[in-house]
Structures are given as C-alpha cells and as structure tokens.
C-alpha cells in the first residue's frame, strides 16, 4: 500500500467482507434452503458451523478499527516524508558550502527518520503552510496510532482522543490535500463520498 486511498480501500474491503461473513453466519448459514448447496462439498466450508464462523469473524473484526488507523497513519507518514524530501532535494543540491550541506543532511535525517511532529508537522504549521487546527487533528491521529502501536495500555491517557478509521482518513486526506500530495485522484473522482459511509450499515 503506497497511498492513503489504497490503505482506505484495504480497510473497507477487509471490514465489509468480515461483516458480510458475520451476517452470513448469523442469518443464512443454517438456512434449510441451502442444504443442497455445493458449498457443503467445498473442503473450506463443509466442516464450518455457524457459531465458529460468527465467533472467528468477530475475533477478526475486533482489532480492525485500530489496525485501520495504524495503517492509514503509516501510509500517510511515508507519503508526507517522501513528498517533503522530493520538494527540498532540488534546493539542497544547489548548496555548496560544507556547513550548510551538513545542516541540509540533518534536515533530511529529520524528515526521513525524526519525529513527525517535531520535524514535519510543527515546522509546516509555524511556516503557515498548514492550518494549526488541522495540524492538531493530525497530531491526535498520530497520538492514537502511537497508543495502539504500544499496546493500548489502560487507562488511555486523557490526551489521546478515541478515533475511528473514517475520522483518521478524513483528517489525513485533508492534510495531504493542503500539501498537494496526491491520494490517487483517479479513484477519488469517480467515487461518491457517501459510499464510504454506506458500508457502515452492513452489520
């Protein structure tokens, strides 16, 4: 996954198909009209009971919201770092003075590996390239991602706001739009925005 849209599509595909499996288990698996179905001859399904299907699907669904935020933010972070590096590279290539070159290398290190908040979000906000409110919203996504990545230790710190993947997606996409980073516009243009919400009604 290289783009935010691809990450979002992965998340919705995984969630929607798991919800479909859960619904299949609860509502249709033991439907008498399916007794002669070829599905019961399929090695993958013939020994699966509705209860197993439902419980396994529920287990798979349980961490998916958090994984969604985690993956979305990872892709976002890589996209922002790549974009800034490409943007700055032509400027730094012109630098001749050794001290300035060393300073430029340190900037690149910060962009590539440093704290996203300190080396990317804050400078962009301070330079007026991003709205402080939006920057804070992205930091909230990062904080939530960090909390999840470090094991969701309870109690959740007051500073960590609970976020769903859709919240994260909207905030991160807005931030990428501001920076002019493409999120696979070919797909976005052809996708009605409400389609993302319709899939929530599957359960």
């Amino acid at each position, binding site marked *: 996954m290289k783009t935010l849209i691809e990450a979002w599509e992965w998340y919705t595909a995984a969630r929607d198909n798991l919800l479909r499996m859960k619904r299949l288990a609860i509502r249709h698996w033991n439907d008498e009209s399916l007794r002669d179905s070829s599905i019961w001859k399929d090695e993958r399904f013939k*020994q699966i009971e509705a*209860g197993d299907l439902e419980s396994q699907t529920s287990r798979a669904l349980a961490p998916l919201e958090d994984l969604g935020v985690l993956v979305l933010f990872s892709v976002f972070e890589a996209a922002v770092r790549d974009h800034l590096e490409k943007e700055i590279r032509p400027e730094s290539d012109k630098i001749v003075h050794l001290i300035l070159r060393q300073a430029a290398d340190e900037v690149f290190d910060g962009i590539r590996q440093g704290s996203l908040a300190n080396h990317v979000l804050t400078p962009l906000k301070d330079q007026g390239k991003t709205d402080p409110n939006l920057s804070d919203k992205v930091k909230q996504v990062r904080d939530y991602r960090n909390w999840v990545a470090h094991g969701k230790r309870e109690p959740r710190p007051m500073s960590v706001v609970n976020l769903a993947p859709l919240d994260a997606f909207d905030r991160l996409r807005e931030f990428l739009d501001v920076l002019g980073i493409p999120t696979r516009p070919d797909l976005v243009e052809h996708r009605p925005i409400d389609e993302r919400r319709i899939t929530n009604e599957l359960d």
Partner: protein
Amino acid sequence: MIMTLNELLRSKVRDFQAETEKNIGVVSEWQASLARLFNQLKEWLAAADPDRILQIQESFKEVKEPGLGHYSAPRMDIRALGQWIAVLPKARRTMRSATPPRSLSPENATGRVDVTDDLLRYILYRFGTGESEIWTIEGPDGSALQELNAKTLEAALVSYFR
C-alpha cells in the same frame, strides 16, 4: 427516525429473548442428548482404561449458536502423558447430511460434537433425536461415517496417543 441507545438495546434484548425462548425445547432436547452421550463416553473410557491413566475433567461451556441463542453444554477434557484432548459440543444445528450406519438414505445431522487436540479432529454427528438417535464418528480424513461405539471411540483415542 434514529433510535436511542436505550431503545436499540431494549429492542435487541427483546429479539434475543424471543429467539432463546422459541428454541428452548430444541435446546433442552439437545442438552439431554449431550448428557446421555457424555455418560456413555465416560463408561467406554472407564472400560478402555482400567488403570485410570486418563484424567477426565468435566465442565460446562457456554455455547452461542446463531439461531438458537446462548445455552450451556457439557465439555470434557482428557489428559494423559502430556497430551490433551477435548470433547466439545459444537452445534445443534448443522448442515451435514450423510447416510448414517443402518440407514439406507441420507439424513440431516441433528447435532455435532468435536473430539480434538487442536491438531487432529474427529467429529461426532448425531442423526435422529430421542429414542431413535444414533451417534456417528467421522475421522480427520473425512472417511465414511462409522457408528460411534466403544471400539470406534477407542480407535480414535489411540490415534492421539500413538
């Protein structure tokens, strides 16, 4: 109109209770059948293991079965020589159809219990109910169903300890 959380929960509770009550007869019959099966298994195990090497622990598990709701069912854990085997009720409602021993035509199974150590799985299918019920055993290779009796149970257990 958007439901409040309280309305939604009340509605779900009503649906859940209605489903559970509707199936109470089916569940009771299934629980009685499981009790008979587990007593029979214990008898066969006692006869097959006169030295009492097998440690048998009985308990109850909560089964959540779509269409039947929640119910309690017995389970058995058999331990010996560092091995563990569980006898677990899986479902009263199953789509398994087969021709059980002593029958001429395929029938729909009326219950399923698994014997497993998480690697090897034998499946006990029930056909019929009450007086006419018969338990069968299907091996991990999916071979033809055999009637469950002391001999076929022992053969299955041998494969775990071999």
